[in-house]
């Protein structure tokens, strides 16, 4: 039960948080250069986005759940399990951000998912 709560929180809050941050950064717009002034400008604009704060909150929650999971399991077990977020991420990008996910991109995501499953199954 403890593990189920921890892993679900890592995947759901992590993916949700990233989607919120992505949405906020789309509002902020492209960083035009790597000049410190430009980076500071982008960061300050990002902090004014409500979606950024929702996203950061969810990612913080996912972070503490990750720490909880890492206290009992190996890194090479926990991290592959969190890759379940690829499925959630592709669907989320499609539904919430209205991104077009092409056929070949689905194939790529599928391959990644198969690979992650083998990594998961290959417990030594």
């Amino acid at each position, binding site marked *: 039960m403890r593990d189920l709560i921890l892993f679900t929180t890592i995947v759901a809050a992590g993916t949700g948080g990233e989607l919120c941050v992505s949405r906020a950064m789309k509002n*902020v717009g492209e960083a035009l250069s790597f000049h410190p002034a430009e980076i500071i400008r982008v960061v300050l604009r990002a902090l004014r986005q409500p979606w950024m704060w929702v996203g950061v909150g969810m990612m913080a929650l996912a972070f503490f759940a990750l720490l909880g999971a890492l206290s009992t399991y190996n890194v*090479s077990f926990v991290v592959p399990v969190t890759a379940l977020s690829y499925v959630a991420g592709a669907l989320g990008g499609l539904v919430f951000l209205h991104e077009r996910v092409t056929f070949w991109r689905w194939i790529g995501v599928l391959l990644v998912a198969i690979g992650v499953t*083998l990594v998961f199954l*290959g417990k030594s």
Partner: protein
Amino acid sequence: MRRLRFYTMKNVTTEHIEKEVKASGSTKSVGWKTFLMILVMIVMGPLGNVLLGKGMKQIGAVPIWPLSELLHEGVKVFTSASIWLGISSLIAFFIAYMLVLSWADYSFVQPASSLAYGVVALLGYTMLGEKVSPLRWMGIAIICLGVFVVSRTGLRTAQQETEG
């Protein structure tokens, strides 16, 4: 669509921004900027996770309920040097991630960053002495193949709207 916006900005906005656009090498810089940021992501992200793993192994299992117990044990997390180093790594990862998301789509960035799974296994193996089975290495190879397929689909999904 995005490309159009880029040119419009160049014409309308102030001289300052125009200079910045020229300094960054215009749209051609998107490629190497993206790959530089993804490189930072796939090194710093896994390094952070491995350091967190190291720190949490030293602390031991944290109970998540009752809440008083969670808070009492949870405070220990912030006394570990490994955890703080891990957090620093993840902050570097997060900054690179935010920057790359400002010009590339989420469903491109996330699969591209999945190379990090290979790096996690390598670092777990070398730094923490975790055993990685052949089946697991095979899985990592398939992940890399998936990343290759995804990276062939172009940098911006928005551009593909015009391609049909």
